[in-house]
């Protein structure tokens, strides 16, 4: 999943200006305010596929440096990007989380262990939230031109973590009501 989004993300970035392969990683990270980190291998394999499909073409840069290979978008590529952006809304996000599986296995067998699991998970979420908030504070204080985009991305993450936290609280309350002993 997400292959299409990565492909079109790269097309979009290249539509702005031609880039080196390694520049594309930072640009993509920036785009989603670091919420979606790609590895370099993933970028190059995607680029290769796109060159093959004729959406992107590569050429040699004239400046000095090790990697002279630059990428730019083709007419076909631009058309493809446009169709993608104007596609109907996305389907609801599928909910998959490793936690669900762990919880599912524990809940009817070991209440105490379940509560411990939820407890430690909550700490993780709080930490994540604090980290996201810190980033957001950084964004706000930096007053950069990309502030709106970045804040939106961070907010999305914050709301998701908040939802996770609320869900954990709700689970805890449920389990306690079942007669789970304190701590």
């Amino acid at each position: 999943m997400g292959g299409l989004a990565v492909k079109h993300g790269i097309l979009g970035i290249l539509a702005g200006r031609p880039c080196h392969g390694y520049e594309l990683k930072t640009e993509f990270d920036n785009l989603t305010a670091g919420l979606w980190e790609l590895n370099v291998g993933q970028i190059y394999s995607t680029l290769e596929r796109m060159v093959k499909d004729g959406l992107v073409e590569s050429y040699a840069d004239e400046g000095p440096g090790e990697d002279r290979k630059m990428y730019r978008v083709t007419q076909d590529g631009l058309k493809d990007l446009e169709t993608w952006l104007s596609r109907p809304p996305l389907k609801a996000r599928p909910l998959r989380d490793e936690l669900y599986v762990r919880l599912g296995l524990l809940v009817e067998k070991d209440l105490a262990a379940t509560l411990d699991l939820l407890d430690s998970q909550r700490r993780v979420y709080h930490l994540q939230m604090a980290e996201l908030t810190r980033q957001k504070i950084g964004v706000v204080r930096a007053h950069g031109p990309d502030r709106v985009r970045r804040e939106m991305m961070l907010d999305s993450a914050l709301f998701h973590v908040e939802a996770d936290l609320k869900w954990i609280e709700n689970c805890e309350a449920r389990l306690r009501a079942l007669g789970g002993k304190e701590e």
Partner: protein
Amino acid sequence: MTEEIIRLERVVKEFRRGDTAVRAVDGVSLTIGRGEFVSIMGKSGSGKSTLLHLMSGLQQATQGSVRLLGRELSQLKDDDLTLLRRTHVGFIFQFFNLLPTLTALENVALPLLLAKVRTSVAEAKALELLKTVGLTSRAAHKPDELSGGQMQRVAIARALAGDPPLLFADEPTGNLDSASGEEILLLLKQMQIDRGQTIVMVTHDAKAAAYGDRLITMRDGRVLDDQLTGGMVG
């Protein structure tokens, strides 16, 4: 840890409700150092507000010791406690609690005026603080002419008027929409970062709590969790 500002040792607070005694705070021990931004979270009835009241000297503990800036609160008389509050502690409340007959400027200057600071000096200081919270243009307005967020900013300015080393905030965003709430939290964070202000904030909102760099989670009058949630941001 840096200089210690608050130290609680096995603090208990009981309230009588009818014939039964309810333990709102049940044996809490913790310390808070200078420059920390501590969030206290918990559901309603978890004892988080009471803990704040005990730390700030608004209420006296039933058992245990509360030391604020090195002074044992249980040994202070009401007047001395008041004086301590006036000079060392700032408060921000959920419902702002501005005096409706005073202008924004006068509300900010209030603690200084109560401390018998000359009016001109107090108002100059208040104006400077209003500038810090971005409300210079509203100095002459009465509270009923301000929005919720603006009122809370005035309240923050007021809390800072006496340059208190310690700021207590009790659900400061509880009565605000999320945008205004973020502004207020950011303002608090700025106070911590730029002025080294120690802040203790009670909230039931995880997103608000995330502005702190230490999170204390309360449940049933006890500290369920006390975690450091981050380093300093520069």
